[in-house]
């Protein structure tokens, strides 16, 4: 095995410069809970590792001027869980992140790493998509923003350009009556990988759903934003007919594979079932009587 160069820049500018200079032979290290496993198995053999955990922008949790949040891409699950208000506003995003791995892994695993790993089954991604979170990306050509659902390009691939680093996630301010939830189906109760994952974010005004977004994981090459499901419930009082229609939209959106974790038939059906259960939790949290 050849030697690996390890860099731990203190500023974003340095990180961008060093990462770009390594020209494709480098990997970004956030929590490392995917990268180190992939290196051990021989799947990835980077010559340079750029550790981004010492960069303030990647590790900060801020409340933005308009009442939203900005969360650094490398913030660990355990750190976000301890934040006094984030989990109250975005309980679904937090529970998705907190489902990754064991307690020990939670001390390292981050939303940025989970998203950039490009797995369609990443547990934090469906709720991020449902939340309408926006990713801030820095690269040699400057900074740009990308909706979270536009970051993954396929299993193990992202739409980040060479040299670009995911910096943070921005969450919009939430009107009263808003909340979210994430549920995943796993055969076991813990220590498992999502066969289907559903994130639902919504706003209720006097019992009527005025806004909703649905993110669906592990049923297609990338995590999906299911417009049809959201449209089916927006403007309704979440009556059974609307919910059934939205669940059907979730099942219809599925483009899964048969694999060791589940069959096409199973995933397609479960997407609808899980949507209904997730919606019920999100609506409950949003204050539905």
């Amino acid at each position, binding site marked *: 095995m050849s030697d690996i160069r390890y860099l731990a820049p203190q500023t974003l500018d340095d990180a961008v410069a060093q990462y770009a200079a390594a020209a494709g032979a480098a990997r970004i290290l956030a929590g490392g809970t995917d990268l180190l496993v992939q290196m051990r198995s021989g799947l990835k053999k980077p010559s340079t590792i750029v550790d981004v955990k010492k960069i303030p922008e990647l590790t900060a949790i801020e409340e933005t001027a308009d009442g939203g949040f900005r969360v650094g891409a490398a913030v660990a699950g355990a750190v976000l869980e301890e934040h006094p208000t984030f989990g109250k506003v975005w309980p679904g995003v937090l529970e998705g992140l907190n489902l990754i791995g064991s307690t020990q892994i939670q001390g390292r695993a981050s939303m940025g790493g989970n998203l950039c790993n490009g797995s369609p089954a990443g547990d934090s991604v469906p709720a991020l998509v449902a939340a309408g979170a926006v990713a801030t990306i820095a690269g040699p050509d400057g900074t740009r923003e990308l909706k979270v659902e536009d970051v993954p390009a396929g299993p193990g691939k992202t739409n980040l350009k060479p040299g670009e680093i995911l910096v943070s996630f921005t969450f919009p301010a939430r009107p009263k009556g808003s909340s979210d939830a994430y549920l995943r189906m796993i*055969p076991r109760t813990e220590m498992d990988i999502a066969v289907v994952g559903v994130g639902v974010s919504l706003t209720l005004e006097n019992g009527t759903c005025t806004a909703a977004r649905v993110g669906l994981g592990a049923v297609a090459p990338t995590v999906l934003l299911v417009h049809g499901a959201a449209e089916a419930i927006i403007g309704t009082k979440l009556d059974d007919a609307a919910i059934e229609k939205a669940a059907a939209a979730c099942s219809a959106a599925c483009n899964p594979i048969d694999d060791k974790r589940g069959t096409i038939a199973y995933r397609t059906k479960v997407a609808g079932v899980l949507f209904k259960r997730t919606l019920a939790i999100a609506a409950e949290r949003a204050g539905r009587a």
Partner: protein
Amino acid sequence: MNDQSHKWIGKRTIRPDGADKVTGRAAYAADATMPGMVWGKVLRSPHPHAVIKSIDTSKAEALPGVKAVATAADFVDFPVDTPVPLGIQDMRWMSRNMLAKEKVLFHGHPIAAVAATSEEIAAEACALIEVDYDVLPFAIEIDDALAKDAPILHDFIEFEGRKSNIAGTLEHKLGDVEAGFAEADVIVERSFTTKPVHQGYIETHACVVSVAPDDRTTIWSSSQGQFMVRAMTAYLTGIPQSHIKAIPAEIGGGFGGKTIVYLEPVATILSKKSGRPVKMVMTREEVMRATGPTSGSKSTVKIGAKKDGTIVAGQGTFYLQAGCLPGSPIRGAAGCAFAPYDIKNVHSFGYDVVSNRSKVAAYRAPGAPIGAFAVECVLDEVAEKLGMDPLKLRLKNAAKEGTKAAHGPTFPRIGYAETVEEALNSTHYKTPLTGKYQGRGVASGFWFNAGGESSAQVNITEDGNVVVTTGHPDIGGSRASIANITAELLGIDYDQVSVQIGDTATIGYSNLTGGSRVLFASAMVVTESTEQVIEQLKGRAAKIWGIDPSQVVWENGEARPMGEHSANFPSMSLEELAAKANATGGPIGAGSQSNTVGAEGGFATHVCDVEVDVDLGIVRVIRYTCFQDVGRAIHPSYVEGQLQGGMAQGIGWALNEEYIYDKNGRVDNPGFLDYRMPVCSDLPMLDCGIIEIPNPKHPQGVRGVGEVPLVPGPAAVRNAVYDALGIRIDDLPLSPPSVLAAIDANSRQAAE
């Protein structure tokens, strides 16, 4: 024994190896290291089935840092036409499993091995070995291997006059099944499949081997038997057993899977060739690809009963996967399946089927859970057809003292009926279920248990304490149990007894830890040795007192004069006698070696409650109790540990564990993420109903306890799922996709 006070037998003493294990001091095989040590790695087959035309190791040998390269040509040759049995193994197959010879037979089959100064260089060198293959079509599943045009794995295997993948059969017959079925009022016949499941030990296979220039060999390894390691290494390398010292490391789980060798002979040859100590440690992926799971199976069972519940005939056909070389546990499947029942007419037939998978290894009551799964599921349906409680059906037909079993023996006093009675009378069985999709299932099981060869040495130290040495790796709390027995027999404190596991040079031959034999057999030789030590102690006291040894008793850890002398001398403690040992005849100690007999079979009955999430197909076990005749619980905590471990593994087998192969004949889930054993949160408290019917043929009444707790599990879970859903699913595992598919198929059927 029965008149003893039981100060220690039955006590939950602190296990002697406990502190080391919880503090991380315990030395497992992979902890061993030596000056000058190099690393061994194995090159594995990329094909599930291919002829090896040639192997060129020259580039690997030329790589800087490489110290030795080995192939099958460096080992003793075992021609396929000459059987060389060793226990239940055959060295013809063991040698070809360790390193492929004529053919590679599964994806991951070892082909060559390299020793180098680092693991990385060894791996790099493996990649430089050039193997020329003639790739062949492959067969993974039983049906593929039995198909008319199936690829034949071994030209030398014939069945019914044709080349075949059926490597062997086994038949048990009792009475006349046809006549039995003719008498039956109710007959149920069903076919089942089970998937291969891995033993799932946490510690992967590992060893360090050092061979001196004169071939004197020292092996540190994780195994279920240091003598098995010595014997197999000797056979495969040609080094005599007397030159090999096999040292048992602490073992991080075995469950049967460490009763054979994969690495030790390879490391031995690499060490011999390189002149360096060689360390080899398997990765989890290697364990999952190339070490034995137990067999997958397909079976058909037919049972007939009269209206009153009397079972009049039982017939079973069991096809078991052997993996790539002969030797599946058909004896466990065909032999144990009907054993809990007194049935006059039984016909049980087993087929040993080879295919392009890793060779199976023993797994906790090998084969028995497969046979029990089919029989216990059919019995559930027989009970339903008769309108009988499934436990009462079992009780009515329970084997008892005098019952002639189809596999041969006539049972002595056994405790099967008691396990069913305890289950029937339990709070668990009497507590009604509450949820709509909850269900309760029951099943029973039998395992042969084993005796066999054991050796022990009991020595009194100069300061009056006791060192007991036995020859079996402790995988279930046997050291604590032996200490309980020794302290009991000597009437001394538990803490005065130290139990050691000797290496092959310090203790006499002891067969491996398996067959639920260790406490049964080692307690016998330890008891004999301790009784001899007590006789010596009495003799020493008699000598000091100048009286006849027959006038001395040993009680409460002291020699005491009796009869006319009882008031003449103060009693003497172990410590006092030890201090005077040299003056009274020298060191005090005794050894015993024996081929033990009298290990009678073990029986268990399980009650399982499940709840099914019918929209997701998820089965959760919500309550589970094992009722088992354990003979005598020498150390109740470790008896419970065995029972709970067996229950957990049975639940895993039933619900999620399976080998998944891709279309190229490769295992697609070679790790604990996608090979889903239960985690703690998947299981409820696993309750133990310990029943003690002492084994009359054992000094402490011990019966083996380690294996039978796995046997009923898969059927108990499946029968509970039937009770919850009204759907009989006959193929394991009951994973969410398969359960949901069964629910959907059932509702479609209902709608039609």
